[in-house]
C-alpha cells in the first residue's frame, strides 16, 4: 500500500519537474536561424571551394606558376596565362621586363575533393578556401567555376 502511494507521488513529482523545464524553455529566446532570410557566419576553418586571393590593387596574387595544377590529385584545376611586358625604373633608366599574368583559372568542382593540396602547395598564398556553401544546381556545368571571374565579381 505504501509502495502504491509512493509510486503515485514520485510520478506526479517527476511530471511537475518536466513541466517546469518546458515552461522555462518557453520564455527562452529562439535559437534557430530562419535560413533563407538570415544566415550565420561560417566558422574560420570551414572549407568551401577554393578561391583566388587578391593583392592591394585588387589583382590576383597568383603568378601562374602552375604548382596548384600539378599538386591537384584529381586534375580539377586548369589555368592559362599570357606574357605581358611592363616598364620598370632600375637605377635611373627605364627597362622593359616580362611577367606572366593569369588569364584563366578554372576549378572543376565536380571532381574536387576539397583536399587542400592546392592551398598547401601555393608559395604565394594566392589560393584559399571560400566560405561559400549555397551551391545547388541542376547542371554540372554550373560547377565549373571560373575563379578569375568570381574574383572580379567580388570586387565589383
Amino acid at each position, binding site marked *: 500500500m505504501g509502495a502504491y502511494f509512493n509510486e503515485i507521488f514520485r510520478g506526479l513529482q517527476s511530471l511537475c519537474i518536466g*513541466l517546469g523545464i*518546458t515552461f522555462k*524553455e*518557453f*520564455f527562452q529566446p529562439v535559437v534557430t536561424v530562419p535560413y533563407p532570410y538570415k544566415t550565420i557566419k561560417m566558422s574560420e576553418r570551414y572549407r568551401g571551394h577554393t578561391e583566388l586571393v587578391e593583392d592591394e590593387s585588387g589583382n590576383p596574387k597568383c603568378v601562374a606558376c602552375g604548382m596548384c595544377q600539378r599538386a591537384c590529385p584529381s586534375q580539377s584545376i586548369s589555368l592559362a596565362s599570357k606574357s605581358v611586358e611592363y616598364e620598370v625604373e632600375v637605377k635611373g633608366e627605364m627597362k622593359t621586363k616580362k611577367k606572366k599574368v593569369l588569364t584563366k583559372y578554372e576549378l572543376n568542382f565536380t571532381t574536387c575533393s576539397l583536399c587542400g593540396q592546392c592551398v598547401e602547395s601555393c608559395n604565394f598564398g594566392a589560393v584559399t578556401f571560400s566560405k561559400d556553401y549555397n551551391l545547388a544546381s541542376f547542371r554540372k556545368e554550373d560547377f565549373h567555376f571560373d575563379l578569375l571571374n568570381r574574383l572580379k565579381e567580388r570586387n565589383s
Partner: protein
Amino acid sequence: MSLTVLNAIIAVVIAIGFAALNAAYLVWAERRGAGRIQRRPGPNVNGPLGLLQPPADGIKLMTKQLVIPGGADKALFMVAPVLAMAPAIMSFVTIPFSDMIVAHSMNIGVLMIFAFASLGGMAILLAGWGSRNKYGVMASVRAVSQNISYEVPMLITVITIVMMTGSLDLKDIATSQAGGIWNWNIVPSLSAPLMPVAFLIFFTCSLAETNRAPFDLGEAESELVAGFHTEYGSMGFGLFFMGEYANIVIGASLITILFLGGWGCPLGLFPGVWWFLLKIYVLIFSFIWIRWTFPRTTIYGLLNLSWKILIPISLFNLLLTAGLLKVF
C-alpha cells in the same frame, strides 16, 4: 417558423462558428506553442506572427479531393468525420459561457454533454473500421478501450460534483460556486476534502477523452502512421481535426464550470464571460504545454493508470464525500 426553432438554429450556427474559429486558431496556437517550447519560432511566414496560416490551411483542405480507398465501407467512411464533429458542436449548445450567454439551458446539461462525448469514441471506431486499413483498425481498438476506461473515473468525479451541488444543470453548478475562489469546487472543504485530487483526475481524464498527448494512442504517428484517420484526406481529415479541437474547448469549459467557478472571478469581482474565456484559454494552454512536454504512454501504462489508480481514488473520493455530506 416558430421563434424557438429559429433560436435553436441561430445557436447552432454560432456554436459552429465558435468551434471552427477555435479549431483554426488553436492549431495555430498549438504550433506556435510547440515552437516556443522547442525554442524555434513556429509558423511565422504567412502574415504577422503566422496568423494567416489557419485560413491557408483551411483553403488547402477544402479544395482537395476526398479520396475513398478501394474496399472501404463508403457509408461508414463518409459518416465518421461528421460523427466526430457533430457531437462536439451539439455540446456547445448547453454550455453556459456566463449567466446570460447560454444557447439552451437544460436541467440535465451534464448528462447531455457526457452522452454526446461518448459518441466521439463511436466516430473513431467507424473511421478505423470503415477505411479498411489495418493501422486504422488497430488505432480504433486502442482508442475505444481508452475512451471506455477513462469515462469511468471521469463520470465518478462528476457524480461527486453533482452530489455536492445537487443539480445536473451546468448553470446551477457554476452559480453555486459564485463569490470567490474559496467557493470553487477545486478548493477542499470540510465535506469534500479531496477535491484537488478529483480535479487532477478529471483533468487527466479529459486529456485522455480528447485523445491528446500523452494519451494519443489512437493516432500514434510513430507506430500507426496516423491512426484512425490514416486514409482520410481533404475535409474528412479537416473535420476530425476540428472535432478534436472543439472537444478540447468543451473539455476546458467543463473543467472551468465543474471545478473553477465558471464565469466567477477569483476575488468575486465583475463576474462575466471574460473570466470564463480567460480560464478556458489558460486550461487549453496547459493542454498544449503538457502535449509538448511528455512522451506518449504505452497502452498498458494508459489502462493501468485508469483502472489501478484513477478509478480506485475517484471511488474513494465519492464514498468519502457522500459520507461527509451526510455528517456536515
